[in-house]
């Protein structure tokens, strides 16, 4: 069924009887050309682009629970391509371009909303660093603007400009950045992939790999063995656990990142704002909730929940930046498991094990990467070579020293 005003109208008139499942409840077949482990946004996007771009349609996405129940459904929905380093920026810009056409491509409204992201700076050194970044973005053909204090004030007059401990000096704006409805991205890719013949198999946990000699030729699952020419793993948060089944140790630690939403409010914050003197960023969803977050808790965790010190730290940042929010209320908070890589940047690469491909290490930035991650992982799986925008995301870069360390904090994942 194609979604349109007409399908809504037809169903309004027939008592909503005409809707059909957005995707089939597939059972695993014995074998596929490609298996994608992980039914999050990245895995589903990979399957979609394999089918759409590369014509590889004999594909299964194996998901241990229901699709989108990991980080795809637990993030703060920001999309942006305001990166500094040449290893990152073309990739995230490619992602942004895919976001910009995504809804028509998928026939699904993911509420991609380009209301801008403003990174505030509070010192000359921060300004210099943002100028460096903004210029790097321009070199990559990406929009960026360096705003002074007056321009920031004109955009967001309610920020604390008069009594701040760390006065706002300006900000780096990427106007094309914004947010998207995270669940809809998952459903949109799932529905579109399904329509191209991809099997989306839920409640199917991978418990091991099937080997022939060195090579991996399939997976063992809770729903039986499934063989495949290639196995792609896109399970950020659990990458180390899945890789361990193949005997690999990864340059990744799992950490908890908390996210927060307030009660619903009339429009207050138009775009995305990040505070430069503390750990706080915020946007407002179309439903009216303020969606905000801060730093990771800092310790290894698979618990999908965090602790009060970070919650307090985030709210202190929020109050310092926007003192009018004191009487607004935190409605829910939760945690996601982040694949924190050792240089803060992702991995899309083959592994030393033949037949096994890895998409991992997204830190807390995986959501915005969803379309390009799928595109580039599909490219790697189909062509056997990295896509041009993801050529730096190699697994051996830690060995060669070609690191992509945006923050410059080195091999300490909890600082990225």
């Amino acid at each position: 069924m194609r979604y349109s005003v007409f399908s809504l109208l037809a169903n309004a008139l027939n008592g909503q009887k005409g809707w059909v499942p957005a995707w089939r409840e597939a059972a695993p077949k014995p074998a596929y050309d490609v298996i994608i482990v992980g039914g999050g946004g990245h895995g589903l996007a990979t399957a979609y682009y394999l089918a759409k771009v590369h014509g590889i349609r004999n594909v299964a996405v194996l998901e241990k629970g229901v699709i989108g129940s990991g980080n795809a459904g637990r993030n703060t929905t920001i999309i942006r391509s305001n990166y500094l380093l040449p290893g990152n920026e073309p990739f995230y810009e490619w992602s942004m371009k895919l976001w910009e056409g995504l809804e028509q491509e998928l026939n699904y409204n993911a509420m991609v909303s380009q209301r801008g992201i403003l990174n505030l700076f509070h010192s000359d050194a921060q300004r210099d660093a943002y100028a460096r970044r903004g210029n790097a973005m321009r070199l990559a053909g990406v929009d960026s603007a360096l705003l002074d204090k007056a321009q920031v004030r004109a955009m967001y007059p309610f920020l604390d400009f008069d009594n701040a401990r760390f006065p706002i000096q300006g900000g780096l704006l990427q106007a094309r950045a914004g947010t998207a409805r995270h669940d809809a991205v998952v459903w949109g890719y799932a529905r579109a992939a399904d329509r191209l013949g991809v099997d989306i198999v839920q409640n199917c946990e991978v418990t091991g790999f099937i080997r022939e000699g060195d090579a991996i030729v399939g997976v063992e699952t809770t729903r039986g063995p499934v063989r495949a020419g290639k196995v792609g793993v896109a399970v950020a948060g659990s990458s180390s656990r899945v890789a361990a089944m193949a005997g690999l140790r990864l340059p990744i630690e799992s950490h908890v990142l908390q996210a927060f939403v307030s009660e619903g409010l009339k429009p207050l914050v138009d775009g995305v704002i990040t505070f430069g003197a503390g750990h706080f960023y915020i946007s407002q969803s179309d439903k009216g909730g303020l969606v905000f977050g801060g730093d990771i808790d800092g310790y290894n965790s698979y618990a999908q929940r965090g602790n009060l010190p970070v919650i307090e730290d985030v709210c202190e940042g929020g109050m310092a930046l926007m003192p009018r929010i004191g009487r607004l209320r935190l409605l829910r908070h939760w945690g996601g498991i982040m694949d924190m890589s050792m240089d803060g940047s992702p991995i899309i690469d083959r592994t030393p094990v033949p037949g096994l491909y890895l998409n991992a290490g997204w830190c807390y930035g995986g959501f915005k990467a969803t379309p390009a991650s799928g595109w580039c992982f599909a490219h790697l799986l189909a062509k056997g070579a990295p896509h041009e925008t993801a050529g730096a995301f190699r697994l051996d870069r830690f060995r060669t020293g070609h690191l992509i360390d945006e923050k410059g904090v080195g091999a300490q994942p909890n600082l990225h």
Partner: protein
Amino acid sequence: MRIPCPYCGERDAHEFATLGDATLTRPDPAAADADAQFHDYVYLRDNPAGAHEEWWYHANGCRQWLRVARDTRTHAISGAVAARATEQASGEPA
């Protein structure tokens, strides 16, 4: 989360800085394959879901580096000993 510091007693984790996996040993820099060993030491992690030994530095306390045994699924902490415990007169086992 509260860390049972052997010197200070139980303290909230926000008093500490953490550095992750405490089972790694700095390789011999003179080894023939020192570069490979250092790569593994600096970058690779078991990252287990379950029992984990990790370094916590009591920055806002006694300034000890502690080896903390914690479960990464539940955050339950089963113990903490000072890195230097064996060096101390009290002779606590490491």
